[in-house]
């Protein structure tokens, strides 16, 4: 028992990136344990998914043709049965929104400890997981003193596996108890449409909770106008209703890759970073020199935005409203 079983993810007909990232993570862990990497793909067009997933590093791909889209009751049952069949030491699942919706249940059902949101591992006899705490201000090492573990991996943290694979593709017959399926997915809805597309902008002035009050939004509006830039924001600004949903950058908002991303009063939470780390030049204005955004920024000002932003507006010949 030294194998790793990793479960992939797809949505509306396409595999998600994390499915290839989990191969990289899984291979690393399987090598450290001296075992094989098993991959599972559940639901949808499993045959063509298996073709796509047959990349370097995968030993076996298990296809399970149950359902079209993700349903946590189905996934939980299937993974439990596959786990019994493959008998791995580590079950790797994505720490995606759907991962959050079944990984903890699987761990409980298997009676195996779970560690979530891993950004790295080590294994020399004992599994060691690196994960962050306190809104990414610190990292921790977590040890799992057990023969088996469920670990979820942070999306976009591991490189996507590539290259021609030579995995053995096997179909797995799961026995899904329909009476235990107590939730039904009835559809999908796209949100955040509208007239502005922040992903098209060359320059984004992006505002976060550091702005404190709705009335202060006009300060960053004035900056955006002065610079001919587009205004975007982190999630709390949209949650509070200060800007519309189509301005939100991040995991549940838009992915942006402007030439310049000006992060003003934004801490740089992982779900925010997921949406802007591809920006060419990142500038952070944040009073906290330890805010995680500083690890990503090319340029930073560790000062009060209420002093810096008005001065910047004036530098460009504009007039500050505050």
């Amino acid at each position: 028992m030294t194998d790793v079983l990793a479960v992939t993810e797809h949505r509306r007909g396409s595999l998600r990136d994390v499915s290839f990232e989990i191969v990289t993570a899984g291979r690393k862990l399987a090598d450290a344990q001296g075992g094989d990497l098993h991959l599972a793909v559940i639901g949808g067009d499993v045959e063509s998914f298996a073709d796509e997933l047959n990349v370097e590093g995968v030993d076996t791909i298990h296809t399970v043709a149950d359902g079209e889209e993700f349903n946590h009751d189905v996934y939980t049952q299937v993974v439990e049965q596959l786990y019994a069949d493959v008998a791995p030491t580590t079950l790797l699942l994505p720490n995606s929104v759907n991962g959050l919706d079944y990984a903890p249940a699987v761990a409980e059902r298997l009676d195996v400890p779970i560690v979530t949101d891993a950004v790295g591992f080590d294994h020399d006899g004992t599994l060691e997981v690196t994960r962050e705490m306190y809104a990414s201000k610190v990292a921790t090492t977590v040890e799992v003193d057990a023969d088996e573990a469920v670990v979820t991996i942070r999306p976009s943290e591991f490189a996507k596996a590539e290259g021609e694979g030579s995995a053995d593709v096997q179909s797995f017959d799961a026995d899904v108890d329909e009476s235990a399926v107590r939730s039904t997915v009835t559809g999908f809805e796209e949100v955040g449409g509208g007239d502005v597309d922040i992903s098209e902008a060359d320059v984004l002035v992006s505002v976060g909770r550091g702005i404190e009050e709705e009335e202060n939004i006009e300060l960053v509006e004035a900056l955006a106008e002065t610079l001919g830039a587009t205004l975007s924001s982190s999630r709390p600004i949209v949650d509070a209703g200060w800007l519309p949903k189509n301005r939100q950058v991040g995991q549940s908002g838009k992915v942006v890759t402007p030439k310049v991303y000006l992060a003003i009063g934004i801490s740089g939470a992982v779900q925010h970073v997921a949406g802007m780390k591809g920006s060419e030049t990142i500038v952070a204005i944040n009073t906290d020199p330890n805010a995680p955004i500083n690890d990503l920024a090319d340029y930073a000002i560790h000062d009060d935005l209420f002093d810096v932003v008005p001065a910047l507006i004036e530098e460009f010949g504009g007039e500050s409203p505050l």
Partner: protein
Amino acid sequence: MKILVTVKEVAEAEDDFEIDGLDIDERYLEYDLNEWDDYAVEEAVTIAEDGDDVEVVSVTIGPERAEETVRMALAKGVDRAIRVWDDDLESADMLDVGTKADILAAVVEEEDPDLVFSGVQANDDGFGATGVALAEVVDMEWGAVVNDLDLDAEGGVAHVHRELEGGVEELTDIELPAVLTIQTGINEPRYASLRGIRQAQRKPLDVQGLGDLGLDASVLESAVSRTAMFEPESESDVTVFEGGAEEEAGQLADLLRDKGVVEG
């Protein structure tokens, strides 16, 4: 109908902090109600206000210090609160997901709620897992990352939106009883009113030990332990502009002009 809301008092690190062993030094931590739980409380209280005969109970596993946070939830409209704590919990190193789920499960069994709301994640340890693990332990249905809820209590179903990545929401019908993990933005959490704060002082806040819940210290045994905490290595070599706001804005302006940004 009864709604149980799990609430956690989370610690937030101050701008400058020091690590002391396996945790941030207490002196640099500030405590507050977890942001996600604030939305969960609001959702429950709104349902109670709109319905007949809905009781909202909150539960926290936490030390006496957490009572301030619990009182805040009571002030916002929670009817009564349970705080689980005792000497065994006090001396436990770290509560992992399985442990928290087992303890909360004992409370669910005692209270027998129709709905349980928890937050998507606790902003300090950020497991993002306790709610769904709890659902499995108590054999309830569940839904994670819920940002819209239309409750049909009579029909025994919750119509929810689950917020997926990239601006896509999944529409799901979930059979009751269920645990829903609540996402921020689902509502607008209220501020506690002065009247609410006064009333909160008189609302029941019941402290229970593991023994009261039919558990013992064995529930705290866990294979998962934290063995190190450190400041992450910075991957970028960031250029920091210094010298006061005027000077810094000047340097930033030069940079922006250099990148082709001009007066709009």
